[in-house]
């Protein structure tokens, strides 16, 4: 169990993060703030994918699809009523007259994404092996095609634009905290332990009385919910959303973050997301002065290759740093398989 001092450490870290944001908003320009916003969104994405891919060992590539569902739902719900009729002719009247505030819209977006994942999870997760990867790959395309062709509701390939700039660092930070808290609570609960058990040995987990299908579907849904919320945050940070906003490339980017951080490690995903989304930006001045573009991507690929060769379990493996883990103080812990 957590000791009191560990709880204090967590609260201290959360407050320190808040203080950091306060300072950043005070002193940094819009550009750096928007990057910080995207860093936060990537943290949410990586940690939530870690719940699906890392904890439970389901190889899902569906995050972009869930982001698109969440993002569009949220964007339509918060779209200013006076422009809705003109832009979105196909909306039913009750929806055309609704304009929700940001938080409930995000929640509903997340719930829709979770619902979408339930639809795909129920049939597919009965199967063993890597069927989920292929199926979720398909979901990305299905969602894109649906959005492209539901012109009256989504404005087709043009996408929705001129969304209100609702996302700021506080919103992102709130959801980062919720995601981390949820991830942590899950990992060190009996529910999380059954997820890890499924990952390590399905047969053994089954014999222990773990309901495989239910646990897997739940893991997928938790990940999808948070991805949906992240999609909503994304849409209102970019202030535009199109069917192609969330592509397969994004799915791989998030998977890479999880792999580099260590599948199953929340701290790892968090750090990998922060490092990866900032590295490409850090190389920009160099790219612009040399007039050679793409250096950041090459460096990232190199890091990925090196990590896969020399540390295939990722930076943290499945563990969290010892001083943050419950139960033990100094040693690394948190694996079911060790």
């Amino acid at each position, binding site marked *: 169990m957590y000791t009191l001092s560990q709880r204090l450490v967590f609260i201290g*870290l959360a407050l*320190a993060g808040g203080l950091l944001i306060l300072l950043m908003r005070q002193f*940094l*320009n*819009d*550009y*750096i*703030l*928007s*990057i910080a916003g*995207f860093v936060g969104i990537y943290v949410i994405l990586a940690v939530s994918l870690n719940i699906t891919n890392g904890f439970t060992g389901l190889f899902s590539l569906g995050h972009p699809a869930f982001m698109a569902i969440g993002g569009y739902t949220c964007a339509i719900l918060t779209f200013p009523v006076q422009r809705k009729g003109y832009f979105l002719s196909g909306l039913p009247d009750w929806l055309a007259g609704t304009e929700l505030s940001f938080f409930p819209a995000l929640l509903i977006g997340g719930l829709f994404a979770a619902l979408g994942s339930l639809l795909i999870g129920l049939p597919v997760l009965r199967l063993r092996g890597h069927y989920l990867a292929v199926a979720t790959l398909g979901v990305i395309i299905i969602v894109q095609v649906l959005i492209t062709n539901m012109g009256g509701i989504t404005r*087709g*390939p*043009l*996408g929705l*634009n*001129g969304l209100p*700039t609702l996302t700021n660092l506080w919103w992102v930070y709130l959801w980062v905290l919720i995601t981390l808290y949820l991830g942590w609570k899950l990992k060190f609960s009996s529910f999380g332990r059954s997820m890890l058990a499924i990952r390590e040995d399905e047969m053994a987990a089954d014999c222990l009385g773990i309901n495989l299908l239910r646990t897997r579907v739940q893991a997928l849904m938790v990940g999808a919910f948070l991805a949906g919320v992240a999609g909503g945050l*994304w849409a209102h*940070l*970019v*202030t*535009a959303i*199109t069917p*192609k*906003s969330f592509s397969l490339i994004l799915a791989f980017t998030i998977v890479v973050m999880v792999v580099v951080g260590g599948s199953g490690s929340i*701290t790892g995903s968090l*750090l990998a997301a*922060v*490092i990866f989304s*900032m*590295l490409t*930006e*850090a190389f*920009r*001045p160099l*790219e*612009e002065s040399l*007039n050679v*573009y*793409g250096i950041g*991507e090459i460096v990232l690929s190199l890091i990925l290759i090196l990590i896969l060769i020399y540390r295939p379990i990722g930076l943290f493996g499945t563990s969290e*740093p010892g001083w943050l883990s419950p139960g033990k103080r100094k040693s690394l812990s948190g694996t079911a398989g060790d």
Partner: protein
Amino acid sequence: MWRKTCLSIILAVSVLAGQAQAAETIKLGALYNLTGGMSSIDAPALRGAKLKAQLLNEQGGVLGKQLEVIGYDTKTDQKAAATQAKKALSDGVVAGLGYGDTTFVMAAAPAFQAKGVPFVTSGATHPELPKWVGDYMFMAPFGDDDQSYAIADYTYKVLGARQVVVWTDNSMDFTKALSKFFKERFQELGGEIILEDFFMMGDKDFSAQIARLKNTSPKPDAVFISAIPNEAGLTVKQIRESGLDLPIVSGDGFDTELVTSVPGPELANDVYFSTHTYRGDDRPEVLNFIEEYNKAYGRDPENAFCPLGFDAVGLIADALERAGSTDGEALRDALANTKGYQAVTGEITYARPSGVPVKGVSIISVHDGKYNVEKVWYPEY
């Protein structure tokens, strides 16, 4: 670990902040997708833009200062477009330019609008773009409606076609809009659309559409193909190979060497398309641009997006001179009052409330594999 996080944050921030602002230049932020799927369109546009700045600087710059075009790579990623727009603004650019595609303009331009800094798109052609973004948004190219109207007028009045077939690439918004505007105008003129057919980007075989084209009655007088370059060459080749010799008409998606190189000079016949007044043109601006481009980069301009990037910088520089200052509002007003600016891609005037330029559209014909400018069409306003 937290120490590491903080350290890397500080590191990144200091690297970014270390990009010290060089004084005494007028900065323009050029947002383009220099890597990723859009780079074949956007990278040449940035080269065109930088060339214009270089030429202006050789003649003493703008308002007595050197013009600096900073390229921002947005990686064919809307997220990057949104952040780089903010980065350009915090770098203190006096105006933004960029993109050959509406999607990315919509991610970047609203940030400029919010800060009261003008943004000129070099290649995005959706006619409602300025309406969506606001009064700080300008287009260097014509709108899609104008190019469709131009070719519809030509098809009806000059080619004398009354019944046409329309083929549309149904996978892109641009091609769908092109067909929509063409049909609208052609029917307004009194023509008739006797068949509509569809294909998808990447299709290689058009035999089904060609069979339907052959079997329609009454016989069509022309076929309008709304396609992007890849399908432009293929459709011409396959239609001619099937023995059909009716005129093929299209928009600027056909403005590519592929229209002649894929079918070969014998089959590339009776093709007409509307496009930016650039290809096959012998105005001094065009010849001079091609010469300078060769001097700077050692090759011919890759496509029409090169001169469009060139013109976007030209438009801004021209407005800066007339405004006499780099103030956003003054620059916006000067841009909005642009009249008869002699751009490489045609004369540009902002006279319509829509913010879409009144600009000539070339009708180019292809006979025996040779491009020839038939006429320059001007929109009425």
